[in-house]
């Protein structure tokens, strides 16, 4: 029993309600938003130190014992992701102060922002499959509101598609939960794992697992990413940055969690399936990234390719692959958010998102240019930045598992990801400014400070990889040995 576990969900929820009360007073909203997110970040840091000291923490809501009541579980995997989510949220919030206009702020941007964070943290911390659905919905409903807020033509158009895709996949999610319940009679993830281990993974269970894989793949943009490029390009940069950092990763977390904890009995079939999906995602993602000449689109397709890398770790499923997967996922959350924040600043200073209309920006915005350059290197996984250790372990795991072809695809996609982002750098910052480009100076520093927070974490995570390894290897233990998780939840 540990009440600390509920705080990363409760604090953003309460902050959201407080900001809702002061919806006309922007400064009060901003004040409480910062306080709320700082508190969330502090609590999640305390949570991770406690998890590092004493193993998996659980909280039985209302005192009901684990298989019957609702349980929240903070293991190392969830705790690491919650910390990363709080850092990203803080950076995005500070960025939003400078980039979101007054109308959006007065029309409940901050409440939805906080509800989104609450939903994301709840998805990471829940130990119950139905509550995973509820957390998903909390997160998604907030994301619908954030994506359409502003009500431009393009936003409305893309939101209809985004909402429809997610409603259909949520309906499929509930249906799969119903099927699973009819077989096992439980929805607690630890209990599910025990029951399925008892009866064995029959064909029906495999079918249900495939249904879950489809649902989570739609949410994560793993192979089924057809909806992603349109929806993510519509809202303002800060919302896209938040979505790129958090939403797809929640879907990936759900895949990692269910397929290492519940449906781990048929690894040959699922690793092969996820491997094919990962390979296709990486290839199609980088094709998208190198074929567009638009900053937003290039970055969005890099998100898709990044999802493929995490799934590649699932497919390899050896110890170093799983640890690398987690390391890479944390890096990916930070770097994708950072790139979108910098891309948003770039679009703001250039006045357009089309690469053909940019050029020569390094003379006027050198800090932005160099930050973008270093982020591009970090994205590709060059040492000493944070992408390197994760990718190294992923490739090592791929070779250990004998997936030479898939590892080759991953290495190649890494290079092409670097190429696609460096092309933005070369086109936008080098050369002469084209005639049509906006000439008025833009106060970009207000946007660079929040991006600088994430930038610092990218470098610290790369240089302090040794310390991070201790945490990710603890998380790797849990992914490899589901019994640690099950014992912590059920035997209390």
């Amino acid at each position, binding site marked *: 029993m540990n009440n600390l576990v509920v705080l990363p969900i409760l604090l953003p929820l309460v902050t959201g309600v407080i900001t809702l009360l002061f919806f006309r007073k922007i400064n009060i909203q901003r004040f409480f938003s910062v306080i709320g997110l700082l508190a969330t970040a502090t609590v999640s840091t305390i949570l991770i130190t406690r998890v590092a000291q004493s193993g998996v923490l659980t909280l039985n809501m209302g005192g009901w014992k684990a298989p019957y009541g609702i349980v929240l579980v903070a293991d190392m995997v969830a705790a690491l992701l919650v910390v990363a989510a709080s850092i990203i949220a803080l950076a995005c919030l500070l960025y939003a102060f400078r980039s979101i206009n007054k109308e959006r702020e007065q029309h409940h941007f901050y409440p939805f922002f906080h509800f989104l964070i609450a939903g994301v943290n709840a998805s990471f911390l829940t130990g119950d499959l139905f509550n995973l659905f509820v957390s998903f919905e909390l997160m998604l409903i907030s994301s*619908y509101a954030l994506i359409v807020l502003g009500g431009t033509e393009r936003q409305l158009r893309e939101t209809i598609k985004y909402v429809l895709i997610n409603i259909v996949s949520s309906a499929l999610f509930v*249906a799969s*939960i*119903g099927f699973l319940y009819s077989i096992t009679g439980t929805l607690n993830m630890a209990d599910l794992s025990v029951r399925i281990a008892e009866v064995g993974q029959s064909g029906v269970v495999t079918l249900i697992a495939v249904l879950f894989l489809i649902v989570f793949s739609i949410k994560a943009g793993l192979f089924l990413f057809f909806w992603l490029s349109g929806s993510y390009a519509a809202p303002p940069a800060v919302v896209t940055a938040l979505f790129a950092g958090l939403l797809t990763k929640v879907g990936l977390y759900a895949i990692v969690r269910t397929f290492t904890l519940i449906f781990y009995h048929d690894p040959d079939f699922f690793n092969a399936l996820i491997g094919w999906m990962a390979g296709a995602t990486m290839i199609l993602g980088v094709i998208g990234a190198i074929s567009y000449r638009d900053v937003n689109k290039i970055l969005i397709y890099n998100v898709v390719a990044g999802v493929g890398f995490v799934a590649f770790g699932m497919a390899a499923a050896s110890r170093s692959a799983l640890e690398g997967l987690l390391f890479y996922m944390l890096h990916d959350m930070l770097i994708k958010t950072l790139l979108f924040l910098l891309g948003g600043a770039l679009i703001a200073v250039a006045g357009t998102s089309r690469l053909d209309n940019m050029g020569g920006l390094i003379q006027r915005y050198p800090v932005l240019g160099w930050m973008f350059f270093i982020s591009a290197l970090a994205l590709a996984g060059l040492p000493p930045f944070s992408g390197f250790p994760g990718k190294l372990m992923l490739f090592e795991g791929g070779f250990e598992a004998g997936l030479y072809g898939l590892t080759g695809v991953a290495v190649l996609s890494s290079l092409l990801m670097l190429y696609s982002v460096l092309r933005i750098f070369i086109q936008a910052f080098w050369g002469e400014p084209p005639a049509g480009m906006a000439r008025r100076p833009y106060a970009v520093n207000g946007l660079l400070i929040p991006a600088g927070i994430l930038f610092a974490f990218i470098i610290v995570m790369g240089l302090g990889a040794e310390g991070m390894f201790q945490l990710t290897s603890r998380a790797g233990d849990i992914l490899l040995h589901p019994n640690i998780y099950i014992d912590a939840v059920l035997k209390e």
Partner: protein
Amino acid sequence: MEILMCVAVGILFAVAVFLILSRSLLRIVLGMSILTHGVHLLLITMSRLKTGAPPLLGEMAEKYVDPLPQALILTSIVINFGLTAFFFVLSYRSYLKLRTDDMEEVRGRPYE
């Protein structure tokens, strides 16, 4: 009884898919609503149907129905009620702005 319910669920799903695949936005919203009804019916069927048994009667009850799926359905109904309302408002708003309810016409612009 379960078989009958499964057939009903199947029909609801088929109708929903048909409506969602149509071009009119209003039909899509209705299809989505029917889809969630089908899912709720599926949930209650999955927990075995019994007639004349309330969910909980204490420890000594002779027969009872599993209360958990009913709680799940209640949660899911509330969520989908909110979503349907939101989707209707979104459709209306986008109709006002885009002046069309035809999904073929909201594909997107080539330069985007």
